[in-house]
C-alpha cells in the first residue's frame, strides 16, 4: 500500500487512538481488529464501501455501541464509553447522518438539548447569545434561531448539528456522511465548516462516500473494507488507488478508465513533438 509515513508529521498531539477494536453482532463481525489514530487539528476521512463498518465504528466511538474487543485511548487515557452521554462528557461529539435534531424545537433548544443552562429556570437569553456565537464562528447563515428546525434547509440543519456538537468544546468531532444529502452549494458550505472546525484545533473524523469531498478536506484517508483496516492514504492518492483499496479489486471500471485515459495521455504527449 502507499503508506508514506515520512510525508506529513501530524498536526498536534494524539487525541484518539484505537487498537484492535472489534465489534460483532451475533454471528456477524462488523469490525475486526481496527486501528485508528486521530491528532488535534487533523481531518481523518473514513471511507469504505457499504457494509465496510464505517457507521459501526462511528457509533462505537459515540458510545452507541460498545466494542467486543480492543482498547480506545482518548487523550492518553484508556476509556470505556457505556452510553452516548459518556462519550459527550469525555469530549467526543458526534454529528450523526440523520443529524438527530428535534424538528419541533427551535435552533437554540436543539443546540442546548440536554445541556440547558439553569435547568430550573432556563436562561433563554444566555443560550441564544451562545448559539449566535457558535453559529457566527462557523460563519453560518441561519435566518433566526427562534424558528423550528422543520423550517430550515438541509445545509442549515447540518450547520445547526455541527454547531451543537461544538457546544461542549469537544476535542474530537465525528461527522457521519455530512454531505450525503446536500446540494452543491450546501456541500461547499459544510466543507468550509469542517475546515473551520479543524482550524479550532479539533480532531475530526469524517465518514464519506464522496471521494471529491474527502480529498477536499481530509489530511489522511483511512480505508475500511469488510470491517478491517485496508490502508491509509493521503489526499494526493489517485482515485485508482483509493477505489482499489475500497473495493479490494485492482481491476474494475474506474481503474480501467483511468488506465485508458493515462494511455491516451501518453499517446497524445508522444504524438506532439
Amino acid at each position: 500500500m502507499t503508506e508514506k509515513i515520512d510525508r506529513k508529521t501530524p498536526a498536534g498531539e494524539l487525541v484518539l487512538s484505537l487498537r484492535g477494536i472489534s465489534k460483532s453482532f451475533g454471528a456477524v463481525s462488523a469490525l475486526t481488529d481496527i486501528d485508528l489514530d486521530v491528532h488535534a487539528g487533523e481531518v481523518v476521512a473514513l471511507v469504505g464501501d457499504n457494509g465496510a463498518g464505517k457507521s459501526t465504528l462511528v457509533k462505537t466511538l459515540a458510545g452507541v455501541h460498545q466494542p467486543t474487543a480492543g482498547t480506545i485511548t482518548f487523550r492518553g487515557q484508556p476509556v470505556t464509553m457505556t452510553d452516548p452521554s459518556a462519550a459527550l462528557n469525555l469530549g467526543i461529539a458526534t454529528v450523526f447522518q440523520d443529524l438527530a435534531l428535534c424538528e419541533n424545537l427551535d435552533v437554540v433548544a436543539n443546540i442546548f438539548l440536554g445541556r440547558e443552562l439553569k435547568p430550573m429556570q432556563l436562561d433563554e437569553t444566555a443560550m441564544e447569545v451562545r448559539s449566535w456565537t457558535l453559529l457566527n464562528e462557523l460563519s453560518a447563515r441561519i435566518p433566526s434561531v427562534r424558528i423550528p428546525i422543520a423550517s430550515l434547509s438541509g445545509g442549515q440543519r447540518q450547520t445547526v448539528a455541527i454547531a451543537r456538537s461544538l457546544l461542549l468544546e469537544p476535542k474530537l468531532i465525528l461527522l457521519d456522511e455530512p454531505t450525503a444529502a446536500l446540494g452543491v452549494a450546501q456541500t461547499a458550505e459544510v466543507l468550509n465548516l469542517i475546515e473551520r472546525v479543524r482550524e479550532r484545533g479539533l480532531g475530526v473524523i469524517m465518514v464519506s462516500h464522496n471521494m471529491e469531498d474527502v480529498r477536499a478536506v481530509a489530511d489522511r484517508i483511512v480505508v475500511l473494507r469488510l470491517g478491517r483496516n485496508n490502508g491509509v492514504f493521503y489526499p494526493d492518492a489517485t482515485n485508482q488507488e483509493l477505489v482499489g483499496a475500497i473495493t479490494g479489486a485492482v481491476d474494475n471500471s474506474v481503474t480501467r478508465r483511468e488506465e485508458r485515459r493515462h494511455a491516451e495521455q501518453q499517446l497524445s504527449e508522444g504524438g506532439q513533438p
Partner: protein
Amino acid sequence: MTGSVKDNAVPAAMLDRSDERVKHETGVGGAVRGFIDRVRSGDLGSLPVVVGLALIWTVFASLNPIFLSSNNLVNLLFDCSTVGVIALGIVCVLMVGEIDLSVGSISGFASAIVGTLWVNQGWPVALAILAAVAIGGLIGSLYALLYNRLGMPSFVATLSGLLAVLGMQLYILGSTGSINLPYGSAMVNFGQMLVMPRLLAHVLAAVPGAVILATGIRTISRRREANLSAPSFGSIVLRAGAITLVLEIIVLYLNQDRGIPWMFGLFVGLVMLMNYALTRTQWGRSMTAVGGNREAARRAGINVRRIYASAFVLCSMLAALGGVLSASRLASASQQAGTGDVNLNAIAAAVIGGTSLFGGRGNAYSALLGIIVIQSIANGLTLLDLSSSLRYMITGAVLAIAVIVDSLARRSRVSHGRA
C-alpha cells in the same frame, strides 16, 4: 468566503438581526402583524378552541339565557376542575407521544381509597388523600416499568390497567358498594361550596398580568444587554393589560354570584405550574424533545426512560388527585366514580385544547380550555333538558372538528415551513 460574509454585515447590527434576508417586525403593530402571519401559516395556538368556545357559548346563551348567568358559570367551574386536573395529566403523556387510557379508573380507585381510609378506617383526611395520590403514582410507575423495561406499548399497558384498576376499585368498595363522605367536612365543602373571598379573587386575577409585565421588562433589559433584539415595551404592556382586563371582568361577573371556587383556583394553579415546568425548565424541554424525536433526545444525552417515567407517574398522580376532587364534588366514593365518560372526556379535553396526539406539541393551557369546552357542552345541554345521547354525539363531533382543525393546521404549517 469569510470576507464576503463580513462585508455584508452591518457593523452595529444586533446579534440576531445580522441576516439581512429576513424581514423583522418591530413594535406593537409588528407584534400584531406577526400574530396574524402565524395564524395564516397554520400556527394557530389556542385560537381555534377560543373561537369554538365563543361559538358554543353564543349558541347556548341564545337557546337558554340561564347558561351565561353567574350562578351557572360558577357551577361550570366546579365541574371543570375535577376532570380538568385529570386532563392536565393526559397533556403530560401526550407530550411524549404516549397515552394513558386508565385515568378514569385511577380516579375512581383514588376516590374509593379516600372513602375507605377516611370514612371507614378513620384516617385523617389529608393522609387519606396523600395515600390515594401516592398509590396513583405507584400505578404510574408500574406503567413506566412495563413501557421502559418490557417494551409494552402504553396503549395496551394502560388498557389492561383500566380493567385491573377498575377491579381494585370494585374490590375495596365491595361490601358497601358506595361510601358517603360526610357533609360539612372540609373536603366536601371544598368540592361543593368553598369560594375565594371577592377581594382575593380580584388580586389573584391581577397576578398573571403583573407576572407578564415583570418578566417582560426583565427579558427586554437582558436581551438589550446581550445585544439581541427585544420585544417592544408597548406590546408587553398591551398583552399584560389585555389579560388583566379580561380576568378582572370574569372575576367581577362571577363575584355577582358565589365567586370563584377554590377548587377551580387549585386547578388553574396546577395548570400554571405545569405550564412553567413544560416551557421554562430542562424537564419540560426534554419532554418536548422526547415527544418530537425520541432517538435525537436519547443521543443528546437525555435519560429518555426517566422522562417517560415522569410523564406516566405525573399523569397517574394527577388522575388520582382528580378522582379525589370529584369525590369531594359528589360527596361520595361509589362504584360508578371514574367510569363512563371520565376517561374519554379527559383525553378529549387535552386534544380539543390543542395538544397533539402524536407528541411534541401542546401546552398545559390546553387542559383548561379543552375541559371548559367539554363541560360547556354538557352543562348547556343539561340546561336544555336534552338527554345524554345528544351530549355524547355533540362532544364527539367537537372532538372530531378539533382534530380536523389540528391536522389541517399541521398541513399548512408544513407548507409554510413551520411544522
